[in-house]
């Protein structure tokens, strides 16, 4: 099948690639760009391990074709740290022990990045709803919620 050209900005860097239309965004990120921080979990739109931020919205990259990202801007977990400084949410996961095995973590972080941008003073209940599309089999979610709250406070203090 004929390949189609796409131009996608990933973590601030523009990439021009010819791809098969059936290529999923998660495979494009992991295999074409070798950004393997985005994980494939269930591969059936349930677990949220593959979550990335596309034009400001958190989406499951296993359920988006790469061709749909043409002309759009994607942020993956690799794009969070800036100049050696962890993103407040990454810092929160570190400080509050928000992970054990770490498999769901990139997705949890990307969901949180989009969520905290629209609500930097959330209740625990709002956080639980926000992460209801991200499965974690280790933590019982308690420390993830603490990590979100840690980041929210940092972001409020930092004016971010």
């Amino acid at each position, binding site marked *: *099948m*004929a390949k*189609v050209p796409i131009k996608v900005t990933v973590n601030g860097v523009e990439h021009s690639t010819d791809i*098969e*239309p*059936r290529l*999923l965004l998660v*495979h494009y990120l992991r295999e074409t760009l070798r950004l393997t921080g985005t994980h494939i979990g269930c*591969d*059936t*739109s*349930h677990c*949220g391990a593959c*979550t990335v931020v596309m034009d400001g*919205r*958190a*989406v*499951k990259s*296993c*359920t*988006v*074709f790469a*061709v*749909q990202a*043409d002309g759009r801007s994607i942020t993956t977990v690799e794009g969070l740290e800036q100049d050696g400084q962890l993103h407040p949410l990454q810092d929160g996961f570190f400080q509050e022990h928000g992970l054990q095995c770490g498999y769901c973590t990139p997705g949890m972080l990307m*969901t949180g990045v*989009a*969520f905290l941008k629209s609500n930097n003073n959330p209740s625990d209940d709002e956080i639980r*709803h*926000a992460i*209801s*599309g*991200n499965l974690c089999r280790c933590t019982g979610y308690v420390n993830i919620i603490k990590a979100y709250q840690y980041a929210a406070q940092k972001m409020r203090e930092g004016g971010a």
Partner: protein
Amino acid sequence: MIPRSFEYFSPTTLDEAIALLHKLGPDAKLLSGGQSLIPMMKLRLVSPEYIVDINRIPNLDYISETDGHLRIGALTREHELESSEVVKTRFPILSDTAKVIADPLVRSQATVCGNLAHGDPANDHPATMLALGATVVATGAKGPREIPIADFFPGLFTTALEPEEILTEIRIPFPPPRSGGAYLKLERKVGDFATAGVAVQITLDDAGACKNAGIGLTNVGMTPIKATQAEAFLNGKQLDDATIQQAAELAASESQPMDDIRGSADYKRDLVRVLTARALTTALGRAKGGA
């Protein structure tokens, strides 16, 4: 999982999209949010030869209020419905529905119109639109035509859309004063389809009796079901407990569930009864509260 190969088109006008559908015929599928289509393609339950992606067509993403109707455009995402002020204040039943569809990540891509156009009786908006008496706008080569939602679901995974038509808008009449609605769904976990779901929208008259009732049922039949007997029964009646219970039993008798992994047919039928009674009670409270 990797879908079969397909040829990809991304028209930038509605006319172009309709012309493509006309040219490519029934082997073409429209892609909007893709949150049902892409999983089905990955499982190879469907393998369209052509994908016509409508996401690059401008001016299809809106929630507007005109001529006494709420209008929802083809590319309006569930997330936008969920956060819309007019929806929150005037259509609490729509807020109820949007919040229980899949999960927040799916809702940031999934479209409201796609939820109807997919024709899946397990989807949640069909029941809500049946309760609200919505109309869908189908646009084809001959221009737009309106289809009442009650005529939109002739069979399983089938809609009244012609192969070259696009569902471009949902129109919902603004509820008159003393109206209220609610959508209740039982799901095993977040993201699951409903074991059963019930949508109720009612309007009361000056004396507090039911002037109009709409009741839609999710995932308890081959199509979304409009519980017309329960609706008719409620007309002109005060909604006391006994009346609510009788209407709930009628709605249960109108459901046609099947045994599956989510429960037995008997269980689901009883669930329709319980959810209908609860949804009526909530709708009544909202109607009296002016919401």
